[in-house]
């Protein structure tokens, strides 16, 4: 069977089980776009910027667990993908980016729209390839998909020259070998390691599980729940780990770290054993390393051996897929009771509630917490919330209740503003039957607001919440706390978001008072089609608690108790 290189690209993509790709055409990728017309079962979403395509592929991957695909032309098309690739890389999201490249004979000659995209993306991809011959396309793309999704997942970029896309070659699916002799995605640990870990666990009086995104990526939610129950060990979650254990589960303490719950951070500092599961001790999670959990022995389970001992030196390191590791733990564990420890944590949880703005009798305005709390009440467990980066992101993590995996999609490691809307487009394409909500700040939303038109063209049913505080709020908060309230370049104006939505043929609404929140959230939910609601919230609110950088995890700045009266009804 004769096929062009361009056709082979889509042969592989469709056989890999991909139904939707996100991209933007241009000169060097023209042959691929021409061939795309024949692949009727593959849906292409035309984003309005290639950054949107890479974020959408990422959102698709995070929502579905499948590999997301982004396509772009050479030069500026490829460089526009970069932010999305770096975002996916930091959060271990499996995406494959396919870029066109100038003809192989002019590579290195500064040809029109030539750009060394494999060089540029080398440090921010799991692996990348330059393909100059049609006969290599199938093998390389199959490798790309396999590398992207296996082991610790991550982005892979495949740069394909225009002549390779045009060449015709004989094609037989079985003839294209995958050769990855050096690739080891499937390491596992010896029984002795489990012995040491289980011994530490059985001796511990105040143990804690620290669960990260690895739980969700390996599908180990059930094993984690069983283990937490049998070992009677509370579970703290990272931002990307939210959804790994239902928020409603009694063992779930909530989020740890810089804006984690006070009782969680205190518990970490007082624990005598930390068992880290698929998380990487990011500095936003540990605070000052020299003072981090000094009384605790540490066990670290991760699929990536390079994570063990990277930031925090541990006593036992177990390398392996979490689901397999936790299954072994569950098989070998003798159930235990640790009532004193759980009671202690519950008590500090109760005390911390006094600082909660939702419990204030007269909050004195509309807070983001009110909006997110209402959203929590009105959405079922399966709704997917995609957040942008900033204060609203942290409030979402604190006030929404994620009871299912893959229901929070957010840029954790890179903290990429502008992520939410395009990632939500990807999530909705991947999960058309699920309700998808965007929560963005007024600043970040403006970074990729052009994708509103993508929603319109695709007739998507997205619900967009803009938490509008008139500031680059998170940066303003740092200026307030650490730079003497010198608000350098953080006040930000916005277009009329309602009119903006309408200009794109979508629906918009504005909410300025607490009383209007429930109605507005319900209206957005009921509306078929994309709707944007602009919530005008208190301008100078801050995210609490906050562990200032360089401080110990339990040295948190708490919400000042301006309004001591606590509502009794909730």
């Amino acid at each position, binding site marked *: 069977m004769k096929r062009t290189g361009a056709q082979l690209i889509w042969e592989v993509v469709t*056989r890999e089980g991909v139904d939707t790709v996100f991209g933007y055409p241009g000169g060097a990728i023209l042959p691929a776009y021409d061939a795309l017309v024949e692949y009727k079962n593959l849906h292409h979403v035309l984003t309005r910027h290639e950054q949107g395509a890479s974020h959408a592929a990422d959102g698709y991957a995070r929502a579905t667990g499948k590999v997301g695909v982004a396509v772009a032309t050479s030069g500026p098309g490829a460089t526009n993908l970069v932010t999305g690739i770096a975002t996916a890389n930091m959060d271990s999201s499996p995406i494959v980016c396919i870029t066109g490249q100038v003809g192989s004979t002019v590579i290195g000659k500064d040809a029109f729209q030539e750009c060394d995209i494999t060089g540029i993306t080398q440090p921010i991809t799991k692996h990348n390839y330059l393909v100059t011959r049609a006969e290599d396309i199938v093998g390389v793309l*199959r490798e790309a998909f396999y590398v992207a999704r296996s082991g610790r997942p991550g982005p892979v970029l495949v740069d394909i020259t225009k002549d390779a896309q045009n060449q015709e070659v004989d094609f037989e699916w079985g003839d294209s070998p995958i050769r990855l*002799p050096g690739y080891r995605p499937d390491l596992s640990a010896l029984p002795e390691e489990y012995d040491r870990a289980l011994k530490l666990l059985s001796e511990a009086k105040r143990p804690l599980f620290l669960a990260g995104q690895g739980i969700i990526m390996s599908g180990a939610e059930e094993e984690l729940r069983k283990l937490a129950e049998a070992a009677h060990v509370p579970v703290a979650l990272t931002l990307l780990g939210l959804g790994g254990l239902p928020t409603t589960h009694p063992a779930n303490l909530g989020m740890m770290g810089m804006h984690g719950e006070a009782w969680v951070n205190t518990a970490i500092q007082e624990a005598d054993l930390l068992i880290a599961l698929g998380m990487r001790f990011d500095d936003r999670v540990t605070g000052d390393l020299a003072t981090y959990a000094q009384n605790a022995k540490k066990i670290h389970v991760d699929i990536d*051996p390079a994570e*063990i001992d990277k930031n925090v030196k541990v006593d036992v390191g177990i*390398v*392996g897929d979490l689901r397999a590791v936790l299954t072994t733990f569950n098989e070998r564990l003798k159930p235990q009771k640790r009532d004193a420890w759980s009671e202690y944590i519950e008590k500090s949880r109760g005390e911390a509630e006094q600082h909660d703005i939702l419990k204030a009798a007269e909050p004195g305005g509309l807070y983001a917490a009110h909006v997110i709390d209402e959203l929590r009440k009105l959405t079922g467990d399966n709704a997917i919330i995609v957040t942008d980066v900033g204060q609203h992101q942290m409030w979402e993590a604190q006030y929404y209740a994620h009871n299912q995996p893959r229901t929070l999609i957010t840029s954790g490691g890179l903290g990429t503003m502008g992520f939410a809307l395009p990632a939500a487009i990807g999530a909705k394409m991947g999960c058309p039957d699920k309700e998808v909500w965007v929560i963005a700040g007024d600043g970040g939303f403006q970074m990729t607001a052009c994708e509103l038109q993508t929603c319109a063209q695709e007739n998507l049913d997205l619900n967009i919440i803009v938490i509008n505080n008139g500031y680059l709020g998170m940066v303003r908060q740092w200026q307030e706390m650490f730079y003497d309230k010198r608000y350098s370049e953080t006040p930000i104006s916005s277009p009329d978001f309602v009119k903006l939505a309408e200009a794109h043929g979508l629906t918009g609404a504005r909410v300025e008072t607490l009383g209007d929140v429930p109605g507005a959230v319900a209206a957005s939910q009921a509306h078929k089609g994309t709707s944007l609601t602009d919530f005008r919230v208190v301008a100078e609110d801050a995210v609490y608690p906050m562990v200032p950088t360089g401080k110990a995890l339990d040295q948190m700045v708490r919400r000042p108790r301006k309004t001591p009266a606590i509502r009794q009804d909730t």
Partner: protein
Amino acid sequence: MLNPNEPIQRTAARRQLHTFVVYAEDKPGVLSRITSLFRRRAYNIDSLTAGHTDVPGVSRLTVVTESDDAEARLIEANLYKLVNVLRVEDLTHVSAMKRDLALIKVRCNADARPQVMQMIEVFRARIIDVAPESLVLEITGTGDKIDGLLEILQPFGIIEMVRTGGVAMTRGSEATTVHPHFVHALVPQTGN
């Protein structure tokens, strides 16, 4: 090689030269992937050499870096994460021969020549070029030995010198690491 099954060794955080032997697929960009890894993780490279092996398609690199044992383990683990890297061996704590080669052009007229020749004899260096005002010497040996020769040549005036950086091999009849033949890694079939 990296063995996830081995308990992680706790050793003193003493910084010393670590010598890694790295086998990698001979593909475009592999060297740059390796140097880029050292750069972005802020590991220093003392020297790096690369060349072909007896297996077509496989390169062998020797990377010498100053680090403590914990960092060396992370360097090894990170090298393994590069898809094209086949095997990594840290030769720091095993019995191995380490060699460096240097060419040294030293200022030396006829009067000084006997004196220089006498000294380099001790170091088993060879003269490979003689000119009226200079000599070119070739020396192989450990880094320390070459440093020693350079020191005593310094007073004569070193015009130019080049060093290859270290290469290493274990002693005895065993290969330094399992022979990295190309194997077809087991990859699940997808599609139809």
